[in-house]
């Protein structure tokens, strides 16, 4: 990766084709060098990507899976050279501590091992070989073949270190070329990941382009959209809506807009695992990705009997402190620090005026925990800032959540048996799309139907052979 292209990845053939590029620096406190095709050259880029994609189409899915598996193995090795560079770059871009980035990479990048990829394809498409050609389909009494997009535009988010890998891997699994637009908040990881893919299987590097444009550079967005058959977009509801509004009717689209996550703890679960273990699990959920991920809990609602919510909150404060001792938050941007100080001041006032409320926090800004009788309004915004809310029972907890159900994504349910399934059913009906055990919120498998959707199946077109005397 040359300094000139620092946050971009251009396929190696781009130089031979003399693709016209513009070189610029990303606006912001760190003016990263970047390159992208000139406005007139997006068609040429698309032609080159399509040519390379023909080779990818001819590559067996098993080979692609093996290459991605190799990349995953490399990235889960903390001594891997590209990972070392990426950790430094991502920590600098996000303010995360190096250890927080390391732990994010550990969690995020082990998802792409072969077994996980195969099971993902099986769950969504049936037989992975369906991507290579026609395969028998018993239910159809015929054969079926899945055709992925020729080029997928991926609009990435920068809130979680390593997360850009997910959309890139999804598109590559469908044998699609990828144009990835990085986020200004963390623009560095994707180019490192692209390089590692290229090293594992050169054709993967040949079908990849990573670059950047500002949100107001709509001409560039339109140029990228114009050459893409499918789009995967992460971002705010407004950002996703603006992409959606520009799509052609023939383009396939998967978006991951704003979501939030919470946890519930039943009295029985607390008794069975013990306060300290439950607290450790909650602290893990909150601290991973510095709570920037949509899957990270902003609040835990706890069945409160005889002060158990306060006891668990106090234990969670200790667990957050212990986690921070091993893995500090990092350095917050001034605006985030100011916002956190205001939230702490509000929580301190509530604790001073409400007997049921309390506030614990690190001497610095590493973590903050508020005990409150109310879930809303809640001004949590990540950076390991959790609210614990006491509830009479799980039904009461779900009643607290119901008004915001349509935004719900990931819910940890600390319960078992009928209580677990009753809560899960109620949560599913109000909007949740993932239920896990406390302590597992930050580790959704790739197999999970992300945001409740079939993220691969929605991007492919199937062709079935049926009702044919020579094909059964």
């Amino acid at each position, binding site marked *: 990766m040359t300094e000139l292209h620092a946050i971009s990845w251009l396929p190696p053939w781009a130089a031979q084709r003399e693709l016209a590029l513009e070189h610029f620096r990303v606006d912001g406190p760190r003016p990263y060098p970047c390159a992208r095709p000139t406005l007139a050259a997006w068609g040429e880029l698309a032609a080159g990507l399509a040519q390379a994609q023909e080779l990818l189409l001819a590559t067996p899915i098993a080979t692609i899976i093996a290459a991605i598996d190799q990349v995953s193995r490399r990235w889960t090795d903390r001594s891997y050279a590209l990972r070392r560079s990426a950790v430094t770059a991502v920590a600098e871009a996000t303010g995360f501590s190096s250890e927080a980035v390391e732990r994010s990479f550990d969690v995020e990048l082990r998802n792409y091992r072969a077994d996980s990829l195969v099971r993902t394809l099986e769950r969504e498409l049936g037989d992975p070989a369906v991507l290579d050609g026609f395969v028998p389909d018993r239910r159809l009494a015929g054969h079926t073949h899945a055709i992925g997009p020729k080029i997928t535009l991926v609009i990435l*988010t*920068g*809130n*979680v270190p390593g*997360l850009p890998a997910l959309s890139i891997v999804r598109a590559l699994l469908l044998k699609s070329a990828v144009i990835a637009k990085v*986020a200004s*908040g963390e623009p560095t990881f994707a180019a490192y990941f692209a390089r590692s893919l290229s090293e594992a299987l050169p054709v993967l590097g040949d079908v990849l382009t990573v670059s950047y444009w500002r949100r107001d550079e709509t001409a560039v967005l339109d140029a990228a959209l114009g050459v893409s058959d499918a789009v995967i977009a*992460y*971002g*705010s509801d407004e950002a996703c809506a603006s992409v959606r509004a520009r799509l052609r009717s023939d383009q396939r689209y998967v978006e*991951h*807009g*704003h*979501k*939030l996550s919470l946890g519930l703890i039943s009295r029985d679960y607390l008794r069975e695992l013990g306060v300290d273990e439950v607290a450790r699990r909650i602290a893990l959920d909150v601290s991973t990705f510095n709570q*920037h*991920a*949509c899957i*990270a809990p*902003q*609040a835990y609602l706890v069945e409160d009997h005889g002060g158990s919510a306060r006891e668990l909150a106090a234990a969670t404060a200790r667990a957050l402190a212990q986690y921070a001792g091993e893995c500090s938050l990092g350095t*917050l941007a*001034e*605006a*985030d*620090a*100011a*916002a956190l*100080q*205001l*939230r702490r*001041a*509000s929580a*301190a*006032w*509530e*604790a*001073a*005026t409400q007997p049921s409320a309390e*506030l614990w926090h690190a001497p*610095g*800004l590493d973590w903050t925990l508020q005990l409150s009788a109310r*879930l*809303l*309004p*809640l*001004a*949590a*915004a*990540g950076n390991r800032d959790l609210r614990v809310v006491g509830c009479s029972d799980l039904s009461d907890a779900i009643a607290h959540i119901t*008004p*915001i159900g349509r*935004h719900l994504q990931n819910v940890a349910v600390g319960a078992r048996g009928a209580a677990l399934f009753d809560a899960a059913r109620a949560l599913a009906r109000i909007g949740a799309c993932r239920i896990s055990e406390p302590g597992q919120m930050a580790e959704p498998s790739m197999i999970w139907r992300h945001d409740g959707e079939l993220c691969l199946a929605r991007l492919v077109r199937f062709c079935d052979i049926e009702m044919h005397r020579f094909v059964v």
Partner: protein
Amino acid sequence: MARIRYRDPFVARLFDDIAQLVTDDTGDAASIEARLSELGRTNSPAVADYVRRMPHGAGVPDSAFKVDPPYYFPDEPPVRTFRTSGTTGQTRGAASYSARGMQLMEASILRQARSQITGGLDAPIFLRLVPPESRAPEMVMAYGMERIVSALGHPELSACVIDARGIDYALLSARLDLAVRDALPVVLIGGSFAFVNVCEELEARGLRWSLPRGSRVVDAGGFKGRARGIDVAGLRALLHRSLGVSPAACLNLFGMTELASQLYDAADSALGPLGERPKGRSTFVWPQVRDAYDLQLRTHGSGLLEVVDLCILDRPHRILTGDRGIASAHGVAIAGRIERGQSRGCSLTLDAITSQEAHD
């Protein structure tokens, strides 16, 4: 420690000392502040608890006035309560005053208005883009403007040029015409963005004036959070085009329901990102900036704005306003609100949901 009663000599002396300070700057501000702090710790267990929890004596947040707002004198019911406007669905903040508190507030408002607004003018025509007190009895700005106009404005020609339907352009035009005809200076006063709208409407109607010498504009608030981008220079250019008021005759004030006093521009030099001028300090009210990382006071640079207002007798006199402040040798520029929760990528904060749904 026993609660300090409203009629105790402690409070009477404190009131007298603050009044003296406001009247002629004589007195010991540090001693007054120490006694206000003692009053708060003694009369409000919540304040005492809060002070113990917060480092470096940081003030109470504006959010403290939304639920169970503090008031120091249970033995003396408030004579007046002002409330924040609030957005739909959100709890409004409240600030209550005893009779002495109201007297201090009025003294502060008038002292500052004399020195900051009407200096060199004799009973100018005040034209307010703010409703009269009778129509907005809980709005502190309506109250303050009415006091200023009653005490310092032209008794017959001053007017509110806003009614239930919006700006009364006929009345505004008539008064401006009259002021020009009789060479009477005018003070226009209202919210910052109200002036933007009024100037644009005047331009659309083809109306403009060159107001008499001494005329001035006082805008309150700022521009952050507005969909339209405009800055101090932009507003001043509009005012110059529509009213013939020079940029040097424009002044911004900062006030909030939770404060008894206001802050005014102290120097005509751009300090904030939108050209915000530094607000100055007086003996009885001043802005200061707290570091975003450790809440220590800063003499330069940005952080959380805190206002210390010695004219607040009935509740905490140090307020973390929720705004961003930029400290300099000339004062503190107020550079918009601090967003308490900001969504990141696909992660949505509950704060963002709450505010979204309040606007749905």
